[in-house]
């Protein structure tokens, strides 16, 4: 829907990330375009989740720039970051629901903080959000009473509460059975299709990648950066990079 606009919604330039002396990622540059589903993938420990933390401003980069919708969030300005984050939703790995609140309260929290709507409208919205993730009727359940998949779906409903323009997800299918995982994929596609939400998803689930990704960014821990970027089918069929081929064909192999 926004494909023809020339401006990327997320722009990363020469990002260097790490802890202290230990550099995990260097020279990472890529763009995410409005409305696309962009998957960051790679083997365990290659810095996927670290990269995601940089994109949502949880970590400051050692060097380089991250801009969201034209605003540079890597400068360390809290005000700018807050402005940007209000247009973003984040789904954490375990759902990160607040355990002391019911599902309805969890979802109502960002709505109460930011929407400015009266309580009855928030009630309706909570119902619609739960309906969106097929959890109608679970309003008054506590997070601990739900299964892992349901907690993730509820986390997704909370992340989508303010209809963000960008949704970040950290391994949404981790720990889920194939059917639940496919349901999550279906939800992502629906949300992307109906609301035009741009999605940045960290994953290494091959089936999800082929089902939902418009483009992927592949990281490798040996070169500490990007090995490939593009459409997953094209990468699988045409990439000459040995690591990329091994990844898509699920073959073990020695390091580079």
């Amino acid at each position, binding site marked *: 829907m*926004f494909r023809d*606009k020339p*401006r990327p*919604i997320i722009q990363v330039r020469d990002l260097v990330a790490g802890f202290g002396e230990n550099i995990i990622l260097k020279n990472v540059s890529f763009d995410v375009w*409005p409305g696309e589903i962009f998957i960051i993938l790679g083997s365990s420990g290659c810095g996927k989740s670290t990269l995601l933390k940089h994109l949502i401003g949880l970590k400051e980069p050692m060097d380089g720039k991250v801009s969201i*919708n*034209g*605003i540079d969030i890597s400068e360390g300005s809290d005000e*700018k970051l807050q*402005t940007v984050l209000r*247009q973003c939703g984040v789904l954490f790995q375990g759902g990160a629901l607040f*355990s*002391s609140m019911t599902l309805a309260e969890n979802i109502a929290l960002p709505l109460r903080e930011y*929407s*400015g*709507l*009266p309580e*009855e*409208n*928030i009630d*309706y*919205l909570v*119902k*619609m*959000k739960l*309906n*969106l993730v097929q959890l109608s009727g679970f309003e008054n359940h*506590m*997070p*601990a009473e739900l299964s892992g998949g349901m907690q993730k779906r509820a986390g997704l409903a909370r992340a989508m509460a*303010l*209809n963000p*323009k960008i949704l970040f997800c950290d391994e949404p299918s981790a720990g889920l059975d194939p059917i639940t995982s496919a349901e999550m994929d279906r939800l992502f596609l629906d949300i992307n299709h109906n*609301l035009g939400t741009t999605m940045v998803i960290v994953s290494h689930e091959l089936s999800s990648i082929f089902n939902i990704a418009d483009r992927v960014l592949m990281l490798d821990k040996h070169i500490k950066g990007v090995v490939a970027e593009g459409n997953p089918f094209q990468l699988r069929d045409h990439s000459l990079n040995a690591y990329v081929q091994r990844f898509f064909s699920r073959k073990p192999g020695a390091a580079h």
Partner: protein
Amino acid sequence: MAALVLFIFCSRDFLPPEIEPGIFMTAESAFNITDKGEGEVVIAFSGAINTNNAAEFVGAINKELQRLRPKLVTLDLERLEELDDFGVSTLAGIKKTVNSFRGIFKLSNIPPPVQKILTAYNFDKLTAPPTALRPSPDIFIKLGATSIDYAGKLAFAVGFLGESIFSFGRFIRKPRILRFGDTVYNMRRVGVDGLPIVALISFLLGLIMAFMSSVQLKQFGANIYVASLVSLSMTRELGPIMTAIIVSGRSASAFAAEIGSMKISNEIDALFTMGINPHQFLVLPRVIATFLMVPLLVLFSDIFAIAGGLVVGITMLGLTVDSYLTQTMSTLTLFDVFWGFFKSAVFALFLSWIGCLRGFQVKEGADDVGRATTSAVVSSIFMIILLDSIMVVILRYY
């Protein structure tokens, strides 16, 4: 026809100034309220009702509706182009407000795309009056549930006590089951790390006691008895109690929080499945470490309190170091000092055990860990005071 026209434009106001008009922009949207008289109101929407403008629309429309209190409200959606869930909630909110005046709510001229969205979000079901709510449980049911809950907790505590006694028995028979490294580590945490605060508080307590009593004793020229008062009350009562209270605040709470978070991250289950007795692994080292360290802390507490009294004695009462210490020595018996140690060892046993118990009682969630921590401190302090009272009575009569 009295017509009231309200026009609100919502365009780029919601965009932060740094953002150039781009994909976050909304179409120009408006609504228009017309009062047709005889309690009939028509609200015509155009453009979009979405995340960006819903709050503003709801605020303005509700205000007008409250003022007019119409009998019939028709929403004209003919020129509505965009609607999202915030928009649907706006319409639902209007319906609810109108219904609250016993008015009639109607949607008219719904364009097919909007109808599709309303259907997708189950507009009719959303605004249907809620089905009969489950009645809140009877007071007797509540009382029963609470009693059962407490009985369960008590049973758990009794089981835990039994488990502790068994673990201790196993330790006596086979001392090497104790995890020595962990015990030493806990001794450091309870003892060495707790020493500065225990010393400081005891010193100040000695100082305060000497100061307060000197005001009275001075009147009778009994300055020298300040030394007796400070040393006796600190070694027999206040030293053990204060030290135990500080240790519950520092360590019992830490035990509860540690074990509680291990419980919610399945670490206790992991120990169990590996065939390791969680009790032996976690409780025994902590209880033994606390049991060994608290009497030592009490020794320091006694010394520092006497030093605090000494400072007041020298600076304010004109006593010499020698006379103060001689008076202290002549008042105290070895029994007093060891009685203090014994009491503190009993306190230590209970407070560390309660800390661990509260940790094991955690079921799920971060707030449960918080509750366990608070409860560990409160119940161990209560236990300390209770035990002290019992011991005072025992000593008095036997």
